[in-house]
């Protein structure tokens, strides 16, 4: 069974005006679109015919019990699953119309367009500055001291970390707290100027206060970026996302506007999960 849903473009009207004028979008674009996508680890099927449309500049949450395939789906978007031997897929995933699995697609280039933040923060054992600058340097996005400085500052501000670290940019990133390290990883991902930001349970290893900071950050970032977040915490999904997709055992059971889904889910399984009868 397949479930698709049109992105509700006009439904969510901005409460405040955007801070500065920007050329209007011509047509509502889809950031990511999955077309009957299936995925296998060897003989085990992890995803079954997923068709999902993820709209731009919204937060889409992927929820579901452990092992339901949500992380697998997330990692398929930037083809991080390619690192695992013996995997195969069927169907397609498109990033703004371009197939991610196309024959001529350069994976490195793809990962520049799609940023990722992992469950457990993984800063490099380098300085804070070098961590944030790494992606920008390697991809040639910023060259020369001045550009790099600007990029680092901008990314750290976007990640709401600048004020806390601006005086110790050359100290090791490993000296930061867990929550700060995670925000550093977000800054690092943003420095590459991705079109889409994937977050795999970014706050699951953090304490409640740090979690709240991350959630506030996500809320602020969604004006600029498309965010897809995997979370096992339903309350978090309800707080943070515009759209929610419920996965169960490799199937996409239901997708919809978050407020609608949590108050009035259409599917029985969704309701069972949301009300905590399993999971």
């Amino acid at each position, binding site marked *: 069974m397949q479930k698709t849903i049109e992105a509700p473009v006009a439904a969510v009207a901005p*409460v*405040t005006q955007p*801070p*500065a004028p*920007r*050329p209007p*979008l011509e047509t509502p674009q889809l950031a990511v679109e999955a077309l009957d996508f299936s995925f296998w680890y060897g003989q085990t099927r992890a995803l079954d015919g997923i068709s999902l449309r993820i709209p*731009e*500049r919204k937060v889409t949450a992927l929820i579901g019990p452990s092992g339901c395939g949500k992380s697998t789906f997330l990692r398929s978007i930037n083809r991080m699953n390619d690192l695992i031997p013996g995997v195969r897929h069927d169907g397609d995933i498109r990033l*703004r119309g371009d197939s991610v699995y196309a024959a001529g697609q*350069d994976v*490195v*280039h793809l990962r520049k*367009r799609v940023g990722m933040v992992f469950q457990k923060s993984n800063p490099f054992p380098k300085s804070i500055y070098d961590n944030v600058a790494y992606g920008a340097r*390697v*991809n*040639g996005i910023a060259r020369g001291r001045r550009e790099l400085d*600007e990029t680092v500052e*901008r990314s750290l*501000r*976007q990640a709401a970390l600048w004020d806390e670290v601006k005086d110790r940019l050359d100290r090791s990133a490993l000296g930061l707290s867990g929550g700060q390290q995670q925000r550093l990883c977000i800054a690092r991902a*943003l420095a590459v*100027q991705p*079109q889409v930001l994937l977050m795999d349970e970014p706050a699951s290893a953090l304490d409640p206060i740090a979690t709240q900071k991350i959630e*506030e950050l996500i*809320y*602020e970032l969604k*004006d*600029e*970026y*498309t965010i897809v977040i995997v979370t096992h915490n339903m309350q978090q999904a309800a707080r943070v996302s515009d759209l929610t997709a419920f996965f169960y055992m490799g199937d996409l059971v239901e997708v919809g506007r978050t407020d609608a889904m949590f108050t009035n889910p259409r599917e029985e399984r969704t309701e069972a999960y949301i009300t905590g009868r399993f999971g």
Partner: protein
Amino acid sequence: MSAPTLQPAGGPGMDAVRSAAPALGWRDRRRRTTSFVMLALTGVAAVLTVIPLLLILFHLLRAGLSSISANFFTHVPVPVGEAGGGIGNSLLGTVMLVVLAGTMGLPIAIGAGMYLAEAQGSRVANTVRFVTDVMNGIPSIVIGIFVWAWVVVTMGHFSAFAGGVALAIMLIPMVTRTTEEMVRLVPRELKEGGLALGFTRWRTALGIVLPAARSGILTGVLIALARIAGETAPLLFTAFGNPFWEWRLGQPVDALPVRIFYYAISPYEEWHRLAWAGSLLLIALVLAVSLAARFLIRSPYRGR
């Protein structure tokens, strides 16, 4: 939660990126090429390191195979010019020396290994472990001259016994460390189970822990014995070498590696051939022992 107030210069918004995103710039292409080339070079490194092995095996087989015969194993060296010489006495000597070294060194080594595994964190144990590691790195020839000064001078002459002592000194640090590591691998629950049943510490150690680590320890022992069987330097001034059959421990005795060395540096073609043959035999022995050791380590813990 407030709306974002910061508008970054040149904003990273999608619009800006969309208009700037090229297909694959020349810079990206160069990065891709660099990646491919460098990774290919590591493959070249791999090939280069395997080549010497293949070459050595090839030459051993080519130069040595022809000299291997029944005579080879049963005869002693004959003067140059005569036919039919062999390395029988060298083989015997090597066996004698390895048995001697094992008898002297293994009990100490296994005991020391168990000591290190049991006394893990103590300062003394850490010192012992450190010294053991350093001893693993002593040049074998230094051990040779030490044993010369200690045993050969005292006895007044070279002997198999002295050679055994020298090899034992090399054996001990090796087996100590491998034993320690194997005993450490035994799950703690096994040991605690024994103690909980009322066994004394030594009963638990000898009756439960040691048998559990048995195959791992044996593997380490075999590998170490194979290594000392191939050692030459410590024997040069202890066992010294002997072109005749010799069973007595108090007399100089021959050993396969020593014989190979003497033959290799000699000016005689015939002896060179024998050196190749002897080397082939030595490698075959070492290989056999390594394979046996590997095979041993497959079997334990399967039924757990």
